[in-house]
């Protein structure tokens, strides 16, 4: 068995767009990544029984992690993005953990998978631990730490007003408004 204490680095970085689509027939939400530029919003199309409409896109990126010591690659193809908890729901387990961790100067980020598949198969605990290691390895941990938690802790996605750490509405000259939940 390998005994490497892995030093993670980002590898295979791909920039592109995350799209959020909703079926206005059944309410199903799906998310996917596209390397294509300029996916228009609002476009509707039918696929099987669903009537998809693109409700949001955001510039984002995907990556894998590679150990600079042993070369091991961990793929993060199922990671859609990281979200900052905005304490939107008092009773949300994410918010409760966030508050507890804040006291020990640990900042929480939520790892999202691609919907709807990720509801059945979220990122494994092992991969969340690798992500946590990666972010802590690249920071000054005497000041503060990062902990990555799964989005499946959020009891009701349709109420969550968390902020994704990607470029949505960033180039707008308008002052940012209150973000509406993406999954409602």
């Amino acid at each position: 068995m390998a005994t490497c204490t892995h030093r993670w680095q980002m590898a295979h970085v791909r920039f592109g767009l995350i799209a959020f689509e909703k079926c206005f027939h059944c309410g199903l939400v799906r998310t996917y990544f596209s390397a294509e530029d300029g996916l228009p919003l609002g476009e509707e199309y039918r696929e099987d029984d669903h009537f998809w409409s693109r409700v949001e896109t955001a510039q984002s990126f995907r990556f894998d992690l590679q150990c600079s010591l042993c070369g091991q690659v961990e793929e993060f193809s199922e990671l859609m993005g990281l979200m900052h908890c905005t304490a939107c729901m008092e009773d949300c387990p994410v918010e409760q953990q966030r508050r507890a961790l804040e006291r020990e100067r640990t900042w929480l980020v939520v790892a999202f998978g691609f919907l709807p598949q990720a509801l059945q198969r979220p990122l494994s605990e092992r991969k969340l631990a690798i992500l946590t290691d990666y972010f802590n390895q690249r920071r000054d941990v005497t000041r503060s730490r990062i902990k990555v938690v799964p989005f499946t802790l959020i009891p009701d996605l349709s109420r969550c007003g968390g902020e994704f750490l990607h470029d949505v509405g960033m180039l707008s000259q308008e002052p940012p408004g209150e973000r509406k939940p993406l999954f409602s």
Partner: protein
Amino acid sequence: MTTKDLMERLELRPMSTFEHREVKGVIISDMVSDVMASARQGDLWLTVQTHKSIVPAANLVDVAAVVVTSGKEVPQETIDLASKFGIPILWTSMSTFALAGKLHDLGLRST
């Protein structure tokens, strides 16, 4: 070099509340995803972005400070969030280009 040195030499105005940090390099980007992929711990992040999303991103990659350039007004909610994380948000009326030149003259490089 520290954020304190840079503020004094380049008249960068503090917007949030924070403890001074060591500055090791510079990253210039107006894209959060780019910064998350490329920034190094201790970088000074030069941007015209003022959206509050810059704060958790800056925190995640542990930059030394965010410098909002070109005199862009920083919303109060961005400042409040930065203060909560102890992230320095500095402000200058200089353009990103002009500031980058001065940082270069001071010996700072992209990492």
